């Protein structure tokens, strides 16, 4: 019998929340990717999006505000054979967790980051998040936002993410396809997942997005993939993605912006010094003999500390 990727909990998001679409897309992507259910781990931070793991019937770890990336990194590096997917809000990943977001780009650990982007902090009543443009006054704000917004796609590209995409919560099938591509990507994938917040963001509504979104993959000329491990090719695809990331307003591109699988993952970098890392990862490595004594030997491992005559 096929594994049921839904838990039987009541999903407590507001009616009309973009998270419902993202949840459905994740569940479908996991079913289609077809790993052993025990081998998936969904990691989240804090906020509305952070409840996602509880609604997916695979292991889930709902962590601290801003820290989903380090938690996901610890899991993946301790057991590189797991499939790790991370859900974080725009405030979670780009404000309180911004340092981790930058570091993750530099590491390129093989996992997928789904950035739930709705421009607001929903669970604390609609404060402005880092993706809300300056001058915007959503209904939870006392005054128009006086912070400038940041561009998650350009930020991700500039710090080294090797798969950068955007999807839209209410095109579940497309979002599922993008998530699946992100999971299959070797390295850190980030998806800027646009989602309305029907309760607090009365500007970027479903209607607002529906009028603006267009799909990059409908353009036959659009090729976001780095095809050769050559500097010129990488630079061309990178600049093309940066340029595309600047499009926002009347038209909003959705799809894969950039993909480069020639960058070694962090796990592969570990393997350079630890050749059997994937076969004998920290998670399952034997540490004691049958009698409970240590397998590690001080004289053997720390011989450089012996004072020799």
């Amino acid at each position: 019998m096929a594994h049921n990727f839904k838990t039987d909990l009541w999903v407590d998001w507001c009616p009309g929340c973009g998270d419902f679409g993202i949840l459905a897309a994740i569940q479908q992507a996991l079913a289609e990717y077809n790993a052993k259910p025990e081998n998936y781990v969904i990691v989240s931070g804090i906020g509305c999006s952070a409840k996602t793991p509880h609604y997916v019937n695979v292991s889930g770890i709902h962590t601290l505000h801003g820290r989903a990336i380090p938690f996901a990194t610890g899991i993946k590096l301790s057991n590189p054979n797991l499939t790790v997917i991370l859900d974080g809000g725009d405030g979670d990943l780009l404000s309180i967790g911004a340092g981790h977001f930058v570091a993750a780009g530099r590491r390129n650990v093989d996992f997928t980051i789904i950035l739930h982007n709705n421009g607001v902090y929903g669970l604390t009543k609609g404060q402005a998040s880092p993706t809300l443009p300056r001058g915007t006054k959503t209904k939870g704000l006392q005054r128009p936002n006086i912070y400038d917004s940041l561009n998650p796609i350009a930020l991700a590209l500039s710090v080294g993410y090797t798969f950068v995409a955007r999807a839209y919560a209410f095109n579940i099938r497309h979002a599922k396809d993008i998530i699946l591509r992100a999971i299959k990507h070797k390295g850190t994938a980030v998806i800027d997942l646009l989602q309305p917040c029907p309760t607090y963001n009365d500007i970027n509504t479903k209607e607002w997005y529906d009028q603006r979104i267009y799909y990059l993959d409908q353009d036959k000329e659009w090729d976001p993939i780095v095809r050769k491990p050559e500097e010129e090719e990488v630079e061309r695809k990178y600049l093309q993605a940066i340029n595309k990331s600047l499009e926002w307003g009347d038209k909003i591109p959705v799809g894969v912006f950039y993909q480069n699988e020639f960058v070694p993952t962090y796990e592969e970098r570990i393997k350079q010094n630890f050749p059997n890392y994937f076969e004998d990862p920290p998670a399952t490595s034997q540490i004691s003999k049958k009698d409970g004594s240590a397998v590690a030997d001080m004289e053997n491992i720390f011989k450089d500390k012996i004072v020799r005559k």
Partner: protein
Amino acid sequence: MSKTDIDLIIGGPQGGGIDSAAQVVIRSFTIAGFESYGLREYHSNIKGRHSYFHVRIKEEPVRSLRYPIDMLVCLDGETPFVHMDDVTEGSIIVYDSDFENTKLEQVVTMEPETQKHLREKFQSLKVEPVVKNLMEYQKSRGVKVVPVSFRKLITDTLGQNKPPARYSNTLGASISMAMLGLPADITKSGIASVFGRKKEVVEDNEKIVDAAYKYVDSLGIKVNKLNVREYRERFMVTGNEAVGIGKVLGGLKFQTYYPITPAADESFFLEGHDYFEEAIENQNEQLRKTGVVIVQAEDEISAIAMAISGAMTGARTATATSGPGFSLMAEALGYAGINEIPVVLTLYQRGGPSTGLPTRNSQADLLFALNAGHGDFPRIVISSGDAEEAIFDAVKAFNYAERYQMPVIHIMDKVLANSFYVIDKVDSSKIKIQRWILPTSDTDEYLRFKFTETGISPMGFFGKQIFWLTGDEHNELGHITEDPETRDAMMEKRMKKLEIASKEIPLEDKLLVFGDKGAEIAIVSWGSNKGPILDAMEKLKAEGIKTRFVYLRLFSPFPSKEVAEALKGAKIIIDIENNYSAQAALVIKEYTGINVNKFILKYNGRHVTEDEVYKSIKEVLNGKDKVVMTSGA
């Protein structure tokens, strides 16, 4: 034959090879069959400021350092000033005569406050604050002064092409060993043992050894030859390295860290020993290569988060940090608490608050270790007092973390971290690894937080079972709940594990009582003060003053009954600690109601010495309620 007991300080600029000089001294004396223990003191600076190394050498195991010292070796013009009071009648000062005309005010590397204190001292002594005059003063009070032109001796030996500054450390060390009567060939072995792989460096330095011995010979000073003892194969490790060794023997597989003094040396050491061969079976028949993954994280929050989540895959994981980094880890510590995650955090205390004294000693993080993080959650807090304890405690930290499924904080301090210890090999058969309870059935629905009699639930892992974790209060499956009854049950389940730990952890891991167990004078202390206190107690005993020493090792769960028992009948209880507020005494009061009534405290960031503890206890016995120890440069 009189017993050997030598205290030696070698001082010079940071970046001037003090560390190598220290290694040469300790390794040479180890090769000669002596016991030694040494400490590095340094500024938060890369090059230029004053640093020194204080070592003590004996036939018996060395537990502490002592002032006044027997020999001071000055590699620059600052050391003679800074350490002028560390010597006494009969001590020897070896100094670089090229700095003879250095005036105190010319020592730009010295902090203005230190200059001011010294200037005042020179004024009261009516001595010109110039190295030359200082040496005359030292001679006048019976100190033997040996001038050496380092530059001349080095260039005469190695020619003009070698920079003298690069060899002054080994020259200083060699002269001191020549004067202490250690045979030259042993000093050469010590040199080879330090610079082993660099052939040219070894050859040059061997020439320096010969020159040093010849020079000392030419002085016509009577040197008592030391009787070389039997060599044994031993390990020279710092406290940082001891913890690293303990962790690897204990099965560490994943360590995370963010650079910070004095914790980072542990992870740096592990990075150099992260791929090795292990014997899986008892008879060493099967060897395999395996490794430890060490991750330098982007900050301490990330470091602890990675270690916590890594533990949920089944790996033994740990992180190591110091005060400021530990402050950042507080929130995640609570996450490990509510999610019952076995993670080990090694906490190297340094002077606080804030950046404080980043390279100096402190024991002021005890209360923070016991209370860090919001809300109530169980944790185990253990403390080590020397390298051997640190090795075994690192293993026990993992065992406790997994057995009781909670975070374990293993407290060290700067003195432990940066001291050199010479220890015997720890046999792997003595390392006992105890892990979690696993689920008995693979088919039943797995409940990560299953209610049990002990509060301990069978452990599941990502990759094995399906379950949830959340920082919210949760049900047995790990899903969020705010149900009041479940909240009570979960809170009680988690906290109950501390009672089980309290019952199971053996007495010797809770506290040790040294000395005369019925003595009316009781000393309480912890951490790196153990050695100096034990040595001071012997001196007191020789004078007929009996003392007992309640040495605390486990702070959470606090062994209240055992501590009360150990202090029973004591008339005077003296608390010795390296912090302002006598934190361990506060903990004793909190858990046992016992009032500690005398205090010997130190918070200047420097190490506690045998003589200082001895003197301070005497002051307490003469009626003082509180003594603040102030020694150390």
